[in-house]
């Protein structure tokens, strides 16, 4: 299977002379097509920095990143924009939906930007919204629906352009437990049925237990790796064990 993401010796240093803070230190990751990878770690471990760099929103100090074979560090801003639009899908903690657009419009936004034929757009949005169970509320505005529905809309937007890689940043962070479960189920199904490649940053062990593989980061370095085997409950237990050794504080685990 092809590698969707290859990160090599990634380093991110903030500040200048005398006052240096290393956010990421020599991180290397490889994610293959169809994987569902979780990134965990305590606050300040560098999870979000890593995600932002992979999302091409931030630049590393050194190292290299290949997404779908393209070296994203060598692209200019215009290229990066179209790269983000065509190859990446995003799900953020605070949904990042435009409140001026209906849910449907939010979902199809990436497609309209790529000037896809309206018929094709309609077809895809119907299919995806049915899969995610939001087909009934497509014409509502974000302020009219629940947090879970918003996040499923964001997920729909993230996958509608069939991206190579879906990046999710604490997608369950603002959701209640029921909505969280529904969303994670949806992501899991996307991964299983549509072979979507997902990289999810979270510090919620429950959310992480839906992944197939988990990378633990601490102080900017990869500390441990866990591959799923057995049931989700067993995996969840394993995750908690690793987190305990991480010692990131109890707050972060629960």
């Amino acid at each position: 299977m092809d590698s969707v993401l290859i990160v090599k010796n990634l380093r991110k240093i903030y500040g200048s002379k005398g006052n240096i803070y290393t956010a990421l230190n020599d991180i290397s990751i490889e994610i293959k097509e169809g994987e569902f990878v979780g990134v965990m770690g305590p606050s300040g471990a560098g999870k979000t920095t890593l995600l932002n760099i992979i999302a091409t929103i931030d630049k590393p100090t050194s190292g290299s990143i290949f997404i779908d074979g393209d070296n994203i560090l060598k692209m200019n801003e215009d290229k990066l924009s179209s790269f983000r639009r065509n190859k990446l899908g995003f799900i953020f903690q605070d949904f990042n939906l435009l409140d001026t657009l209906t849910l449907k419009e939010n979902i199809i936004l990436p497609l309209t930007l790529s000037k896809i034929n309206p018929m094709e757009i309609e077809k895809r949005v119907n299919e995806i919204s049915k899969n995610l169970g939001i087909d009934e509320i497509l014409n509502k505005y974000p302020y009219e629906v629940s947090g879970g529905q918003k996040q499923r809309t964001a997920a729909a937007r993230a996958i509608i352009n069939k991206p190579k890689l879906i990046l999710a940043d604490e997608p369950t962070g603002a959701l209640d437990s029921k909505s969280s479960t529904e969303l994670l189920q949806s992501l899991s199904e996307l991964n299983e049925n549509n072979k979507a490649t997902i990289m999810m940053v979270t510090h919620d062990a429950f959310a992480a237990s839906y992944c197939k593989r988990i990378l633990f980061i601490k102080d900017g370095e990869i500390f441990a790796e866990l591959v799923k085997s057995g049931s989700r409950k067993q995996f969840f237990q394993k995750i908690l064990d690793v987190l305990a050794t991480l010692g990131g504080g109890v707050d972060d685990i629960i």
Partner: protein
Amino acid sequence: MTLFNIAMKNIKKNFYNYFLYFSSMILSILIYFIFTTIQYSNQVSILMGSSRNISFAFKSAAIVVAIFSGIFIWYSNSFFLKKRKKEIALYSMLGVKKKQIGRMLFYENIAIGIIALAIGIFMGSLLSKVFVMLLLKLMGFSTIVKFTIIPKAILNTIISFMILFLITSIYGYSIIYRFKLIELFKAESKGEKVPTSSPFISFISIILIFTGYYIYLKNPATMLITLILVVLGTYLLFSSFIIFFIKISKKNIKRYYNGINMIGTSQLLYRIKGNSRTLATIAVLSASTLTAMGVVSSTYYDFISKQNARYPFSYVVASNNENLIKKTEDIMIKFPENKIEKSIKINFLEYNGNFFNNKEEYIDDIFIISESTLKEIFKIRKIEEKIHLNNEYETIIFDEYYNSFCKEDYKSKTVKLKLNNTIIKFKVVDFKPYPLINQHITPFTIVVKDEVYNKLYNKDNLYTVKAFINKNQKNSQDLTKALKEFASKFKTPKNSKHRTLYVNAYYSSYKDGLIENGILIFIGTFLGLVFLAATGSIIFFKQLSEANDDKYRYKILKNIGVNKKEIIASISKQIFFIFISPLIIGVIHSLVALSFIHKILDLNITIPIITSIGAYTFIYMIYYLLTVSSYYKTVNQE
């Protein structure tokens, strides 16, 4: 740190936001100062002669500037305060008393006012000479003016604007007391709903505007009703029809699903409700400015293009005393630079006559000349047209007041002349809508066969004039003055219909026209500029404050891969709509209003109207570009 220091820091920090407000204010002050300078200055009035009093015109114009500036400052202030709600709330939370916050804002306001006032007056003093020269040039004088500063004008400007600043600052001060802390912390537009539009009200707005137009076009005397209907219609148009329009445009999926259109359109729809009143106000304001500018430029154009046709002769001297005419000629000879090039003596016969058309009957003095005299006049005036009367019952009419708008065509109508008790009828075979000789001499003239003229000839009905074409008629001030002085020596007997000696001069009318139009153009242009600057800055503020609220939306867009170009395109489109819609409505309103001017002047006024609309649009578009670039800068800030 004192309150005053904080106030000063705030101004520095917010300078970019204040910049346009500040420059519009300086412009208002500058124009006000120039107007009052001219009002008090004796240089202009000396040049024009003491008979005229232009200070009234400039005083009125200055008052209009002051009132408008007051409204503008008031609006801007309440706008800035709204924008700074959170900052004010923070001060409150930190335990600064409302009284102190109020005082701080008061200082800020007054400080900005004083700076603007200082810059405005300083620039005004420097530029006043240029402005006065410009005015004189427009009025047709080519003298050099001395550079003078008039303390009275400075004092007047300072006092007027300080009063404005004080009033608006006190208003700002009072606003603080009405704020509730919890309200201050609430984000400005969270949960703003998508506006609903009623097709019925949209329909009504269109009906109102068109009814207004229709009534006005039918009968311009109903201006007030039209004004009410159209203004009301415009407000409804912007609060309802525009929303309706955008919603309909969303239905066109092919267009709507195309790239940035969706972002721009939905953003517009989301914002339009809060903008509708501003937009309608701007449409109405643009309409009035454009109409005023159109009227001024059309009048000027009318004057320029018709002066020579109205006064084909440099001088027309009317007197039944041949001797006096001779004496005026002697005066002309004394001025070699205005040498007589051609002259003609014309003997009119003056009768009471009735002119009939189908419906109405005009009774008037009718002046009669013979066909051969007309041919001579035409020769001198270099009119090539062939004139021919077939028989003694035919006539040609010259009516200088003819206007296709209020009078019917003369052709194939009948003129009746009353001679003691007999009535002679003439058939009109041709008519000319211009004066035969200069304006105001023989307003209504008929041409008859020589035989008829001779038959009608009677010493008592004679009205003799001599018309001259002189060299250099546009620079004949001294000769004209001499002639007019000479004419004023002769008193007209009470029972006489005509003056003993009447001198009609091209120069007087030309000069009057230049002066009047020059003043009108000067005042009109600068008032228009003040209005436009204020209009532009109001839209600018409004858009910029929205940009601040929209920041996070553009960040989302950037994250999902919308590139710079697309964001700029989307912003440009969206703001273009905001700018262009009131402009279009304003232009249409003003065109309808100006159609009346077109009718009265009986002149093709396309050129002056296109010029004024073009100039207006050009400056307006500068504001558009400024707004787009500032908007982009704002949303692109980290």
